[in-house]
């Protein structure tokens, strides 16, 4: 950890951290940053890769479908394979709307100012 950095959670850095189905077989997590500087500081650090996201959710890296930077919205999108299709027997969250917390609580090195 460099001296000027400290640990901050993604939820503390971002404006929105949210999850939702992207069709019945995928779960998509959106991290939307407040401004271009924060977005650029985040993506420059590349704090999220497939292995990290998989660990947060107890999945294999192959279950992490994609991690996409979307500059027009200053956002990073993470898409996971759902463990089962939406609404299958054993479902806990049909809309997939409450699966964001492990990502939001993930702490990364973050400078005092960006």
């Amino acid at each position, binding site marked *: 950890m460099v001296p000027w950095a400290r640990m901050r959670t993604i939820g503390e850095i971002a404006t*929105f951290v949210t999850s*939702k*189905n*992207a*069709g*019945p*077989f*995928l779960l*998509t997590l*959106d991290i*939307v940053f407040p401004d271009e500087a924060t977005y650029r500081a985040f993506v420059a650090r590349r704090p999220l890769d497939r292995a990290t996201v998989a660990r*947060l*959710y*107890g*999945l294999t890296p192959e279950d992490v*479908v*994609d991690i*996409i930077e*979307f500059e*027009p*919205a*200053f*956002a990073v*999108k993470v*898409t996971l*394979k759902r*463990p089962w*299709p*939406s*609404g*299958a*027997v*054993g*479902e*806990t*969250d*049909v*809309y997939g709307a*409450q*699966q964001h*917390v*492990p990502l939001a609580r993930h702490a990364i090195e973050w400078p005092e100012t960006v």
Partner: protein
Amino acid sequence: MPSMTVLAPLGMLGYGIPLRSMDRGLARDPAVLALDAGSTDPGPYYLGAGVPFVNRRAAKRDLTMILDAARERRIPVLIGSAGGGGGRPHLEWTIGLYREICRERGHAFRTATIDAEVDRTWLRAQIGAGRVRPLDHDRALTAAAVDGATRIVAQMGVEPFLAALDAGAEVVIAGRACDAAVIAALPIRAGFDPGLALHMGKILECGGAAAYPRHGSDGLLGVIEDAAFTVEPPNPDKVCTVASVAAHSLYERANPYELHLPHGHIDLKATRFEAAGDRAVRVSGTRFVPSATPTLKLEGVARVGFRTLAIAGVREPRLIAHLDAYLANVRSRVAETYPDGYRLLFHVYGRDGVMGRLEPGAAAPPHEIGLVIEVIADDPETSAAVLALARSVALHVTYPGRQAIAGNLAFPFSPSDLRAGEAYEFTIHHLVAVDDPGALFRVEMLEC
């Protein structure tokens, strides 16, 4: 070409059109009222059972406002994914509502309906011809899955809407449809760029969701020109910002840069979002990329049984400490009477009731937990019988250190056992290659 204005009065028929937004939207002289009425989001039940997920009275209010406005202003109405699931019973439900409103209000429209249910014989033939592939998963479609499905729909693109409009329809009530296509159909028919029209459709299909503050059901205006379109909320208390509109590209999609339709996809890699005044956003640069092979998205569900459930709470710390052993005990005691032919599930709120297998783990044990006991069985009576036994065993079975011997569970309701009806699962989510993306969808003119 002069600009064309589209008003999406709301993002989901039945979620409530705000009166003031409707009035202000209509004052902008829209050429069409277009809206999406469906989604797979509420899960597989609604497509399978053939029922809507919105309230009928609420949907009637919204549709009455739309039809009154259409009659007064002589503008067409396009409704996609009627009744939620967009299958035949959903279409019929919407047509019934529509006829009732027309009768009560004295309206008469030239009306087209578009059926989106898929013929099983045709689909089995497509499997045989190697034209079907899985979407977002890796399970190949089998003839058995086609036969076992309760209902199968395909998402239509713009083609059937264009056919209905060409046939003179003033009101189009369509089954399952790509939400963007419903809104893009009239601009595309008028000759506007399909990339821009479909991107505008994708933003408008959720109504006011692309405007801030993002609360409540609301409408959205789109104005398309030759090289750009502008979106703006009719609600004066809301604004579209570059952030609100760009962020909407993320919503419910795996890839914000692409949106696939039967005849191609739109590409947002060169899209520009710019503020147009204080409340509107101008969008340009989105391209339409035609596909060499048109593909239709298929959605299908199968019934997996009948669900019965009971809801209870646990406050006793000793029971919470022994919860897993206690639940295993309940399961094995139920199995002594009913060895198989059902699935018994425990949802433990306060521990992993929300995230299940994705839950990374809790810190301290909670002071109380919510317990949902669920049984799925092939027939409703077996489901109810197993649940009744599981509930009574769970109430009375002992565990180490038990002091509260009168009962283990706090039931909030009497009766405790709730019959939740049929349970369904998504079994078909595939793409099928077709020669003509419109051919599958039957357009019929309705006497009304």
